[in-house]
């Protein structure tokens, strides 16, 4: 039986069976295309240089590449890991705090329409332009201020690149809080600050988590700014990972290991905070 007649013979299955077969085929395809590259790179990260260069499919796994990335004197990976953790955590905390406050104010109080519009138009414009266009003036300004190659510069810029999405996300989460709840709180004698803190904020905790998780991932992944506003002392994980690919003598094994290690935090957050990530990405992409 040739492949063609076999495909044509799909017609003899019931629609329900065909639908299930389509589902299985889709899953298989998605797994091969999405997970395949990770598995292949993961396998290479456990190979010796010779096994990599010969493209061997069976090999004796070794941890050498990970040891090299994590503990060799040449590698800045661990230092970069600390920098990335500090920068991503700090910038996430700041951006969630200021975006939440601003979003609540815009949502709750009677602001002039032009003011809200101006803010939204400005944030969307800033969000869509290639960030490298801003890195030039940032570079000059941070040099003037003595902030070039500091974690402060990274935190500040990561706060501002995540601010637009954080603001839109929090606004849409506040919109989903029924106004009656707040009105009831105020009737019961809460002033506006207390109503915000004790009544509304607990209701948008899922929103805070979604915004926080996304801001953390985007800060963790950010490369363009970190590449140009830092040198070796404050290089983040992406900058160090990129070095593996650009050195004159490319070390393929450590390059694979470093890429896998850099991907872990995002995958872990994805695993634990999946619901929030999906919600955040969908809202952030559509709104």
């Amino acid at each position, binding site marked *: 039986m040739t492949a063609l007649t076999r495909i044509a013979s799909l017609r003899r299955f019931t629609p329900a069976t065909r639908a299930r077969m389509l589902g299985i085929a889709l899953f298989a395809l998605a797994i091969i295309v*999405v997970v395949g590259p990770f598995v292949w790179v993961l396998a290479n990260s456990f190979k010796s240089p010779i096994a990599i260069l010969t493209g061997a499919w069976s090999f004796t796994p070794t941890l050498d590449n990970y040891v090299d990335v994590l503990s060799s004197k040449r590698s800045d990976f661990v230092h970069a890991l600390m920098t990335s953790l500090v920068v991503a955590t700090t910038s996430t905390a700041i951006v969630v705090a200021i975006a939440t*406050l601003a979003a609540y104010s815009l949502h709750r109080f009677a602001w002039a329409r032009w003011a809200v519009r101006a803010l939204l138009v400005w944030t969307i414009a800033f969000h869509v332009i290639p960030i490298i*266009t801003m890195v030039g003036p940032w570079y000059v300004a941070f040099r003037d201020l003595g902030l070039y190659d500091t974690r402060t510069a990274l935190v500040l810029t990561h706060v501002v690149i995540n601010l637009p999405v954080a603001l839109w996300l929090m606004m849409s989460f506040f919109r989903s809080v029924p106004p009656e709840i707040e*009105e009831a709180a105020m009737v019961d004698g809460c002033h506006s600050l207390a109503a915000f803190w004790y009544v509304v904020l607990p209701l948008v905790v899922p929103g805070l988590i979604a915004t926080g998780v996304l801001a953390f991932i985007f800060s963790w992944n950010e490369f363009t700014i970190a590449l140009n506003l830092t040198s070796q002392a404050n290089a983040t994980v992406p900058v160090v990972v990129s070095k593996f690919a650009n050195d004159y003598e490319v070390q393929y094994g450590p390059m694979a290991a470093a890429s896998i290690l*850099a991907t872990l935090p995002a995958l872990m957050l994805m695993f634990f905070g999946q619901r929030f990530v999906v919600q955040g*990405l969908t809202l952030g992409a*559509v709104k």
Partner: protein
Amino acid sequence: MSLRDPRGDGVFSATFKYWSVAPAVLVLAALTVLPALALLRMSVSTITFSEGHEHWALTPARNFAALFTDPGLAATVVNTLLFVIVAVAIEMVVGLALALLVGGLARGKGLMRTLLIVPILVPPVAIGNMFKLMYNYDFGLFNQILGALGLPAVSWLGSTSLALWSIVLVDVWHWVPFVFLILFAAVEALPIDVMEAAHVDGANRWQMLRRIKLPLLMPAIVVALVFRAILAFKAFDEVYLLTGGGPGTSSELVSLHLYRVFFEQNQLGYGALLSVLTIVVVLSMLAAGRRVVVGAGAA
């Protein structure tokens, strides 16, 4: 709905409306408005550093003249256009097909969505490295597959005719999930009663797709298209890692070219001028896209 007269207890609470937006506005003013103004000033200046001091000189004519002597600019414009059109077209078609197919699944929609979101969350630098390994001429996965099929090995990143398309493939892998995510949400929101009515009236699958689903999905399709087309200009990390714009200028894209001018050639003034032009193009696309989106019936 706003509460126009919130009961204020104390100054802190009475001025809550104002101080709560202040931090965000300050951050935006300091890190986007001021730098945007600085960028405009830089675009007509030449900036040099000597002994730790910067020197600014007003040289608008020189910066504009540089536009015509920049050897990589023409290639960059052409590459960027090709890249945006082809990559976004493929991403839209594949993303829409996936959204419709996954939307038709009886089970496992959530799992599929989780799986398909992964590429958006992986550090682009790691994606670049992964593909650099897979594209490797000697041992990369792609050439291994070609070899297994009895085909000759291909220089994915080293050939001037192929490098840009190898970058396109990476971008497609990275961003199909984004298109899928937007369109899948829209597919899930399709009104069931309309679908059932069409079904009862005897519409076949093609008619359902062509006459019912696609028109209803059009606003979401336009939103996805506009966003992808604009955000494609941001592509930097993967190009930087995979080809560095090469061989020659065969895969140089706008963000990478700006990086080179700013930080490899140290032409801050001319880089700023190119940046301003890039921003003008991107924002014009956004404005035009907004009109189309409004025309297509989305918010």
